[in-house]
């Protein structure tokens, strides 16, 4: 695996192109149909602008108007399928009531688990949630610059107060050092850092008590043990697995790294649990779940057709490559298998803390008379499924035009936190064919500048994060 070079990449891309499966439909015919559909939609977009501005004055109206206003026949990137029209307008233009995806938002399903936190620390450093320490405490990293964690903080969602746990310093003399995944243990919090710039395999490990204090460097490793892919902490050691598989340990007081016997091919899931798949094993289904403390090995088997399959200590989640393949949930022993309608497993991150499943939501609720998909613009971006209670909760920020997203806590093991910035809106930014930026086409219906190419960019946000804390979900505590 490690002897790949650029020529391999050239070959693979060329072969993939040669062996691409046949397109399902005739291109020209499809293009004709879509153009017809877009003309129809642009009229409705213009109506939408008028209706929304008439109903609500102020900033929101301007925003909505701007979002819909790009829907003229021009080359607008954000053009979503037919249902991407504000609901109100659907009514005012006497279109049928849109069908809704029946997933209630997390704030309704688990009100005690959803809170908002500031997106930035008082000194301006950006927060990135790591995981939850309790039903009311969130572990956050604060980032002074892009992607570089500088500080660990705890945010108490009950009191709205923050506590600095520790700084995350770099080791002296190491250039381009970046702290990587953080992991929470019973007593301690550990993380590792790398210096990817020098190309050499090198990593170091740090520890701080859960109560906070000065972070202490445990030690550093080079070579094979430095290819860290997951980390954990026991009562007396930092433990980690490597990309090629295999689990190592080093005493918290420092010392020589030791490879734990019998861990070949294993990747840490969440100590003491390990799996025979790592985060890079795309398209590989899990076959084993191992308890490294007891040595207990559980064989698990993916349902037929599943290309993704991940198991936590009690539950497994899986699915196929496309929305057509349904999301599957079952116990580790294969019992209580169920299918989750309207969800799919594309994306690969299925397993969260407490064996909660994370699935993408198919917003498609049907087809129109032309056979084009009809989507629910209010469908959540993704859904959390708690197999313990059967509860399903929608997450993510969606702006009603098919744009949206969410974040996962960055702990090494499956995180207890998902979050999103509800303030972010996606707007179109356009430029001419020569690459010169131009103002977005106005909302005036029918205005078209054919030489303009548009892309979606984000605006707003950066003030608050909406956070779901899985440790606060009833029935899983």
């Amino acid at each position, binding site marked *: *695996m490690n002897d*790949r*070079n*650029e020529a*391999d*990449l*050239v*070959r*693979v*891309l*060329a*072969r993939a*192109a*040669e*062996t*691409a*499966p046949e*397109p*399902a*439909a005739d*291109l*020209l015919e*499809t293009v004709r149909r*879509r*153009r017809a559909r877009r003309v129809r939609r642009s009229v409705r977009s213009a109506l939408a602008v008028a209706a929304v501005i008439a109903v609500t004055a102020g900033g929101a109206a301007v925003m909505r108007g701007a979002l819909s206003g790009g829907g003229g*026949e*021009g080359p607008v990137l*954000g053009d*979503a399928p037919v249902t991407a029209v504000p609901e109100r307008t659907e009514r005012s233009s006497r279109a049928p009531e849109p069908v809704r995806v029946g997933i209630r938002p997390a704030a309704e399903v688990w009100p005690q688990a959803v809170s908002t936190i500031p997106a930035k620390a008082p000194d301006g450093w950006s927060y*990135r949630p790591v995981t939850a320490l309790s039903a009311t405490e969130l572990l956050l990293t604060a980032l002074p610059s892009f*992607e*570089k964690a500088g500080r660990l903080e705890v945010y108490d969602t009950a009191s709205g107060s923050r506590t600095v746990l520790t700084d995350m310093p770099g080791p002296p003399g190491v250039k381009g050092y*970046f702290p990587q*995944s953080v992991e929470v243990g019973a007593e301690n919090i550990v993380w590792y850092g790398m210096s*990817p710039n020098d190309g050499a395999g090198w990593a170091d490990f740090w520890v701080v008590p859960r109560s906070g204090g000065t972070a202490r460097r445990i030690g550093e490793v080079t070579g094979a043990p430095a290819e860290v892919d997951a980390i954990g902490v026991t009562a007396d050691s930092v433990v980690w697995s490597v990309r090629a598989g295999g689990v190592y340990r080093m005493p918290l007081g420092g010392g020589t790294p030791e490879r734990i016997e019998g861990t070949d091919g294993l990747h840490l899931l969440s100590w003491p649990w390990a799996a025979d798949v790592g985060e890079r094993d*795309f398209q590989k289904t899990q076959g084993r779940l191992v308890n490294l403390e007891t040595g207990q090995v559980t064989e698990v088997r993916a349902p037929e057709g599943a290309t993704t399959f991940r198991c936590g200590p009690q539950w497994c989640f899986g699915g196929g490559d*496309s*929305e*057509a393949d349904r999301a599957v949930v079952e116990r580790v022993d294969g019992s209580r298998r169920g299918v989750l309608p309207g969800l799919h497993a*594309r*994306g*690969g991150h299925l397993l969260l803390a407490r064996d909660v499943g994370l699935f*993408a*939501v*198919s917003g*498609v609720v049907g087809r129109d008379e032309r056979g084009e998909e009809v989507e629910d613009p209010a469908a959540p971006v993704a859904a959390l499924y708690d197999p313990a209670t059967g509860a399903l909760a929608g997450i*993510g920020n969606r702006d009603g035009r098919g*744009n*949206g*997203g969410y974040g*996962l*806590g*960055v702990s090494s093991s499956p995180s207890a936190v998902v*979050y999103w910035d509800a303030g972010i809106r996606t707007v179109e930014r356009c430029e001419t*064919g020569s690459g010169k930026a131009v103002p977005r086409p106005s909302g005036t219906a029918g205005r078209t500048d054919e*030489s303009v*190419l548009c*892309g*979606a960019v*984000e605006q707003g946000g950066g003030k608050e994060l909406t956070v779901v804390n899985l440790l606060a979900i009833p029935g899983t505590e």
Partner: protein
Amino acid sequence: MEFADFVAARGRALYRYGYVLTGNAEDAADLTQEALMRLGKAWSRVRRRDDPEGYVRTTMARLHISTWRRLRRERLVAQVPETAYTDGGLDGDEGLWHEVGALPPKQRAVLVLRYYEGLPDEEIADLLGISRGTVRSQAARALDKLRVRRADPGAARSRAEDAAQGAAGVDSVNGMGTGRVR
């Protein structure tokens, strides 16, 4: 040449390019259709003055890296036949191909433009509307993830600000994103 003739002549090649960009048949068809639709709109101008194929390929690359595409991709109904694509012709390269498919769209686009289209970084930068430094850092980051060794040792320089990629565990809807909340 008329638009329909162009589509008939070049559609298949464009679709293949779309397949390498997106990694699957349904997105490839969607991307190709969308780009062709835009070409159709601009046909009289592009045919007269520009290179239609270049126009479509640029549009496809830009569409591919847009937020819209990343999310739209997640919500498409599969339009390919039920029979699974078996990577028949990849002869043991399936692993690398799948990993390419898991890259964030921009990194993937940069790799495709560099190693499939064979474009120099300057042209990739112009085409995607990003800086040359970003092209290099995106490519380096992608090659890193794929564990592809670079022939040019100088290319390693641009990895500086990409170092925390591993710490950036936040995912987009498709689960493979590099960034913050989208």
